[in-house]
């Protein structure tokens, strides 16, 4: 089970009933697009409590086509990297101690608490 964009939209809408579902949908899509755009234009993202995204450089190297064994020159490139913030790291690790029989990533959406609406 995983949470996707529509789940997030639904959950945020429940907490912001004075907005229209359309507003919340556009908001979530604008946030995700803004984040992708930031990285795609060489920038970084810093969200306190959640974490930061930076671009890591991968040096050029000679790779091999696994099928033919032929050498291929791979140019240097940037890949996005996420570093979780302190709060998120601690909260995530707590889920392991709280529920030791459940393997990583096997939590169920259905058990997510409803967070309080913002006043």
């Amino acid at each position, binding site marked *: 089970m995983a949470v996707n964009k529509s789940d997030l939209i639904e959950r945020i809408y429940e907490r912001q009933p004075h907005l229209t579902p359309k507003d919340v949908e556009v908001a979530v899509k604008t946030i995700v697009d803004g984040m992708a755009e930031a990285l795609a234009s060489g920038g970084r993202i810093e969200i306190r409590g959640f974490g930061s995204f930076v671009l890591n450089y991968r040096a050029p190297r000679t790779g091999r086509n696994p099928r033919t064994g032929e050498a291929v020159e791979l140019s240097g490139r940037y890949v996005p990297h*996420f570093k979780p913030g302190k709060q998120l790291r601690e909260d995530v690790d707590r889920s392991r101690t709280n529920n030791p029989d459940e393997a990583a990533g096997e939590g169920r959406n259905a058990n997510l608490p409803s967070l309080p609406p913002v006043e």
Partner: protein
Amino acid sequence: MTTLTKAALVEQLYETLGVNKREAKELVEMFFEEMSSALSHNVPVKLSGFGNFELRDKAERPGRNPKTGEEVPVSARRVVTFRPGQKLRQRVDNYAGAQSN
């Protein structure tokens, strides 16, 4: 290099949507709260066009205090990992390619 923050996202929402500053701020806060909540309940998050946040259990491993050189075990833990989606990797790659040309 530019850094995207919550404040910048709030500004983007305020300009794109017909919401006021307070609502824009709440939407941004809630977006990250809901993702953190899912991950903190061992539920992965998938954002199409961006990437997936996954959870992994790490076994205890030997470590070292870098300052003193003393051996200290790194305890078992659960961590979040981010796997950028194909589309985001491609976009980042295109940018890097444009820079080096």
